[in-house]
């Protein structure tokens, strides 16, 4: 028997047909957790006490909506499965960081042509967006640094 603790948490669920609200809520919650969808009714997150708890609350909400959900800590995946899941998560985060970086650069302009001073509202939206992606970036996507630096540059431009 493997004595190692769980490394992943899988949630499987089934929602009753009808109202789309529980479906949207489930999808939004999984997105905020940074879960990787495996199939239309199954998702996976890296194991942590925090994410395990969030999966359990999600399962409870699905149950309250008349559906059924299972939360299954997983000790080990095959190398192939683990690589595929990490890659899928990383690709999504890279896209999200990339979008933030482009938006930040749009605020600051280029060296040749500086944009006008970024508005506080736009800067706050960028910083919130960054915090949101950071909270679900479980594998430290490489786009994190460039996005953060682009947002910091926009902030400095505003504070100048």
């Amino acid at each position, binding site marked *: 028997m493997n004595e190692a603790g769980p490394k992943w948490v899988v949630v499987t669920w089934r929602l009753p047909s009808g109202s789309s609200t529980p479906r949207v809520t489930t999808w939004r919650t999984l997105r905020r*957790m940074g879960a990787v969808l495996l199939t239309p009714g199954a998702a996976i997150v890296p194991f942590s*006490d925090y994410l395990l*708890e*969030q999966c359990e*609350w999600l399962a409870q909400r699905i149950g309250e909506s008349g559906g059924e959900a299972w939360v299954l800590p997983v000790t080990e995946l095959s190398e192939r499965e683990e690589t595929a899941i990490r890659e899928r998560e990383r690709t999504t985060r890279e896209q999200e960081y990339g979008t933030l970086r482009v938006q930040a650069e749009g605020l600051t302009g280029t060296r040749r042509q500086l944009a006008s001073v970024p508005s506080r509202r736009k800067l706050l939206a960028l910083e919130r967006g960054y915090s949101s992606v950071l909270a679900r970036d479980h594998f430290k996507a490489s786009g994190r640094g460039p996005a953060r630096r682009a947002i910091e540059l926009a902030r400095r431009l505003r504070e100048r």
Partner: protein
Amino acid sequence: MRYVTREGLHVDRIATAWAIGRFVDPEATFVFVPRTKDVRGMAETPFDMRGARLSHRGERCTFEVLVEMHELSDPALGRMGLIVRGADLPYEDGMPAESPGVRAVFDALRDGPLIDEQRLSIGSQFCEALYAYCRGSD
């Protein structure tokens, strides 16, 4: 009354325990069990455990459910509930500005070398301060 919740205390369980002792049952005592325990048939009153009556409901955290269940009408508790929810659940746009800081404090409390009784004691002092802050900001 004797209350039971999951071990490895974090913000929602500590805030709920604090509110139980402060507003609902000054004689309350607390025990902590593994998350895998089934709440059915427990002699104690379970909270913030899957299947417990006093637990998350919809998008609300256990602290907010306690406030509603006992009709605690203090607006400061309502505001504190939003902060606790924001600190307890995954990042969401529109969460109170205080929530990330509160989460950082309780993350450190959970991940440090303390036992749950100590986490509850220290965390309760923090909750008392947060409550005072919420009263002051109304």
